[in-house]
């Protein structure tokens, strides 16, 4: 095998090792710790409100699983969806239930 091919294969091996090392690092440093999990669960059981505070611009986005169909109109009757985040997070499917 010539030098060039060896170099390419070594680069591939390094890339595989690097990706695996990155996965290990993230698993250790960035995964949810048991303590954080317990705290989160404690907080949610305290407030019993389920949704994430990622987007807070509108009530139906913030507490989406408890939003009703009309909460979209409450913000503005003419515009149904104009927040960028509603392209990813919309009102709950439960909102359509009677």
């Amino acid at each position: 095998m010539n030098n060039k091919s060896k170099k390419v294969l070594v680069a591939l091996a390094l890339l595989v090792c690097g990706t695996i090392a990155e996965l290990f690092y993230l698993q250790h440093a960035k995964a949810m710790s048991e303590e954080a999990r317990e705290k989160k669960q404690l907080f949610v059981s305290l407030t019993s409100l389920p949704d994430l505070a990622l987007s807070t611009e509108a009530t139906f986005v913030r507490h989406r699983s408890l939003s009703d169909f009309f909460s979209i109109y409450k913000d503005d009757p003419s515009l149904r969806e104009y927040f960028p985040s509603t392209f990813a997070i919309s009102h709950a499917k439960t909102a359509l239930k009677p």
Partner: protein
Amino acid sequence: MKINFYLIEFAINSLLRQRAKNFFIFFVLSLLIFVLASFFFVASSIKHELQTTLSALPEITIQKLRGGRHVDIDTSAVDKILQIHGVSDAVARVWGYYHFENAGVTFSLVGIDAYEMQYKESLQTIAESFSLEEGKPSMVVGAGLYEVFTQNGYEEYFNFLLPQGGMKQIAVAGVFDGATSLESNDMAVLPKEAAREIFEMPSTKATDIVVKVANPEELPTVAAKLRLLFPDARVITKEDLEVSYQNIFDYKSGVFLVLFLVTLLTFFMIIYDKTNALESEEKKEIGILKALGWRVDDVLQEKFYESFLISFFAYLTGIASALAFVYVANAPLLRGVFEGYSMLRTPFELPFVFDLQTLSLVFFLTVPLYVGAILFPSWRVATLDADEVIR
């Protein structure tokens, strides 16, 4: 099948001969994989976060509707609910939104039962610098909300404007732990009486009622009984929430994905089209190889190594950079899709989840497709007579 190292060497050298072209393909493919994987990683982390807290939620939430709109429910309903067999607890909740006009921020106010013993203990575990003065209404706020308060000069207390005019001063007793910031960032937890005063809600009313059911098997029966008992109410079970979470990135993110897939398919179509009308030089190469005695499967094996190498390199580069982008750099630019333009920003530190499903989904969406787009045209040329190809 035995791995033929000579063929691999030949494939690598063949790739390096057309360095510029192959590097460009590698770059575009890596970029596509990077965008696709980043989106999937963010989505799976958010889903994981939601699933983690799902078990801590009460089994049923009852909201009263009038004309399809949510209105306050009578607290007397709690006694009726408690009489249903299987219900272990029912609590009338007081919660809502408060618009802080100075900062242009809307946050959530949650009333809890006047700092009862169990609540006190939980609060002490999840709140930093928690100090409670007896007899004085106080609240515990999320980190983001506290920042907004301090920016506006409210470090120790906050003045809520009451609906009928006047102000209600509530002391800030503590800030929620940073670990809970994805849930607590824009929330203030305060005694129920204070919340009622701010919302001007009489003590006979509540925002909604949460019901705990000890035995999960009884949940559908209890929910059905509640629907019969309160025909005007919306009964949301934990199962509904779960289904709702599964749909969180529903058709709209589907549109995003479809648009993306169109891009991906266009890329493969270009590759396919380009190799299909194989440049005379590449065609000639295959012809010469055949004339030298290579069989069809030798040519195909060599082309397979070539295409697999380039797409696997691109896959690894795309995945590795997407992981760093989402979990180390906290997804700049992409976070805008999920955050919107809310004034109260949550630190976008998503928990890392090793999601084999996402990794394999991205792999099978890209690598085999690319290999196929290269192999098929090569096979068509390789099956022709060498003499016909070279000429």
